[in-house]
């Protein structure tokens, strides 16, 4: 196991270097730059723009810029934002809390609800509940999240006045109740789509398990149905969910762009979009490296957990 983990870590480092080079190249080869927003301004001339370009080092050859950035990153300096001069790690850190809060809440709701719907759908296959769950999942996966978000705001905020129309908290009120009040709508909207995903995966996995011989044997032995489902079927059906969880892991800290925009949530998704729009290269590269690291960690954890949970699996 130790050798396996070591090999995976070495592969991860190589992958991160490739991702960084490719990401840097694509980002800088796209036309435009961080100073384009000032080009139409009446206060900055072409000469001013050229001067600032030189001062930011953006006129250097791309390979030199990349090596400079990479060298500093290895020393722990992820650079500074072109927009506010703040350190990239500081900026990412300031958005992580909000992101984790929203994504973790939505994920917990989605896992619990989705697994319950999936299990029930598998056990009562082709029943009314299963049909409704299938239709609901299709709707949730088909309709855009921003539509759900805006409809939620329209009904619960504009007309009923039950929920705030956005933000993470009321400014000046840092109470837990206020935070929860603001969390309800965006978490539910996000959880809606994730519930559909978890539900469908769980249903398929459960269906595969309940038709196995050992389940038939357990029934023949006279075990109660609830015990068959929870002790035997569910535990085995959850194994593939580890892979799904591994894929979902990066989103815990990666954010959800559309939901964050609709609900004015100050998360990583919005930060990424804003940074791309402004061509804030250091922040974009920082988020890219952070997300890539999360993906690699997620898949490694999933593989290790799979091996721990399933004694039939051996790694290394």
């Amino acid at each position: 196991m130790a050798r396996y983990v070591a090999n995976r870590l070495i592969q991860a480092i190589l992958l991160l270097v490739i991702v960084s080079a490719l990401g840097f190249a694509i980002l800088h080869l796209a036309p435009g730059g961080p100073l384009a927003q000032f080009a139409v301004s009446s206060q900055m001339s072409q000469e001013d723009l050229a001067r600032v370009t030189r001062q930011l080092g953006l006129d250097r050859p791309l390979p030199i810029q990349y090596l400079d950035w990479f060298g500093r990153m290895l020393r722990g300096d992820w650079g500074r934002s072109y927009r506010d001069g703040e350190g990239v790690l500081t900026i990412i850190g300031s958005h992580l809390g909000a992101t984790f809060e929203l994504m973790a809440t939505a994920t917990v709701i989605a896992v619990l609800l989705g697994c319950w719907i999936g299990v029930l759908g598998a056990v009562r296959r082709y029943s009314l509940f299963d049909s409704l769950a299938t239709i609901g999942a299709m709707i949730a996966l088909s309709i855009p999240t921003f539509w759900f978000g805006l409809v939620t705001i329209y009904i619960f905020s504009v007309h009923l006045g039950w929920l705030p129309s956005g933000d993470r908290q009321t400014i000046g009120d840092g109470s837990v109740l206020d935070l929860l009040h603001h969390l309800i709508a965006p978490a539910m909207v996000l959880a809606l789509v994730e519930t559909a995903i978890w539900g469908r995966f769980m249903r398929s996995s459960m269906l595969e398990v309940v038709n196995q011989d050992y389940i038939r044997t357990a029934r023949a032995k006279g075990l109660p149905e609830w015990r068959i489902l929870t002790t035997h079927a569910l535990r085995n059906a959850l194994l593939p969910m580890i892979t799904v969880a591994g894929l979902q892991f990066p989103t815990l800290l990666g954010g959800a762009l559309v939901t964050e925009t609709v609900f004015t949530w100050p998360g990583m998704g919005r930060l990424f979009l804003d940074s791309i729009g402004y061509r804030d290269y250091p922040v974009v590269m920082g988020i890219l490296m952070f997300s890539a690291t999360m993906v690699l960690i997620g898949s490694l954890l999933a593989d290790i957990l799979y091996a721990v949970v399933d004694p039939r699996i051996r790694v290394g």
Partner: protein
Amino acid sequence: MADETGRFGVGALGHLTPGNPNRRQFMLLGASAGAALTVPASAFAQSEGQANPPDKPRGQVIAALSQEPTVFHPLMPGIEVDQGVWWQIFSPLWFVDPAGHFVPDLAREIPTIDNGGISADGLTWKIKLRSDAKWHDGTAFTAEDVKFSLDLINNPDFRVLSRVGHRLVKDIKVVAPDEIHWRMESPYSPYMSILSLTCMVPKHILEKVSDPNNSPFHNAPVGTGPFRWGERVPGDHILLNAHTGYHGKGPYLERVVFKYIPDLTVLYTQFRTGQVDYTGIQGILPNFVQEAKTLRGHKIFVSSTASVEHIAPNLEFGPFVDRTVREALYHAINKKAIIDALNYGLPKQTESFVPQQAWSFQPDLPQHSYDPAKANALLDAAGWVRGASGIREKGGVKLEFTNSTTSGNAVREQTQQLLIQDWRAIGAAMRVNDMPAAVIWGDFWQQSKFNSVLVGVNFMLGSDPDVTPRFGSGATPAKGGRGYNTYQYQNPEADRLLAEGARQFDLAQRKVIYGDLQKLIRNDLAILPLFQSSITEGVKEGLQGFRPNINTSSNCWNMREWYWA
């Protein structure tokens, strides 16, 4: 050079002595009163002051912005939303009010030729400063801070917003803690307006930093403005608290919060539900304006901005070289349809690059008429013959071109469709070539690589109409010039007028010069103006003091005067 009377008109306007105005001052007063009467009420609309401001700062205002302020050093490159925050934290020597008058802020009085603040030749400036202004940390503001700020701007290692005007400042002398003198390399009257946009920074803090481009000050600024720095939650909001030791009027609010809401629909929704008190840049979308006007507990203000929406032709590209083509294209544009159908009738038609509310606006420009028949006749007479495809050509040059704008801007994209239709009728073929903002405003715009662009530009330098960087022959970046004459406009008469206007300190004479310049630009059709842009802003009922200001890039300019009734 200044004329023999040596008056600096705008300064005279802002410094009238009520007891015994001279003839020039009286005429200027009459002119400004007349101008105010002709200006649409919405330009100066303000929330009625039905109650007096409180004795102490009270309450808070949440101002929603669709772009996030991220630059808090007022001398570094920033956009309009950044400037809106700077005006709360920092102060300039003077500012410009909605009527175009300079009003002293850190300066004790506006320097004029009359009061000796500016020498008759415009070269020596003597500024008297307030002695009661304090930085937010309690340190006294002095002339040393002014000198430091101007020196910092001209520091080649400092990543400054712009050195236009400042690079002419030489031999800065701190004569006393409340007086500073300097010499200008050449007379330059727009510098008054440039200084109205230049905030002073604290010497006692910034002289200690090793890197002027990066210091704790950048994210925890200290100024002399009506509000002091509170906190910033990146991607969410900025909170400012009242500076109770402020030297000027106000502040009457305890707190101001700038809230970042990137989506304009969401921004309007939060205004509607009462989560925000004021919708700042970019305001309420035109399609929501009618509904917004019916909202109870809210007031809506539709005001003009200084930005002029226009078609920017590359004057050295093929068919655009011919002035007749530009005139024909202009006559073929149905401006009313663009304004009414796509912009809900909110903006106003214009013929000038100067806002209609500005002191320098020339009202007697030829008025556009939508006349495709005339456009066709002009082109026929000029030898532009329709080919088999219906597209005109002359001397091997086809009347076809691309038009570019920011992709994703739905209103502009629809405008382009109307233009395609309008121009097809006169045998001109336009193709759309849109691109994201970060691309189009890069080299494509700056190096004049476009055929034509649909764009909104604020041509003014604050309240000053000096457009040398926009229309001066030596200001074309594509030809190595210093400026942003991306149209590649070249006209010796325009150069002469621009040079004369920049040297002239008498307001009345400057008005004539810039009036002539507007006539020239209009006649040459260096730009095809569509309309002067407008912004629709909303405030919650009870919020007093809001006043749009055509001379500033943000209507947050006077938040120190806002209060809850």
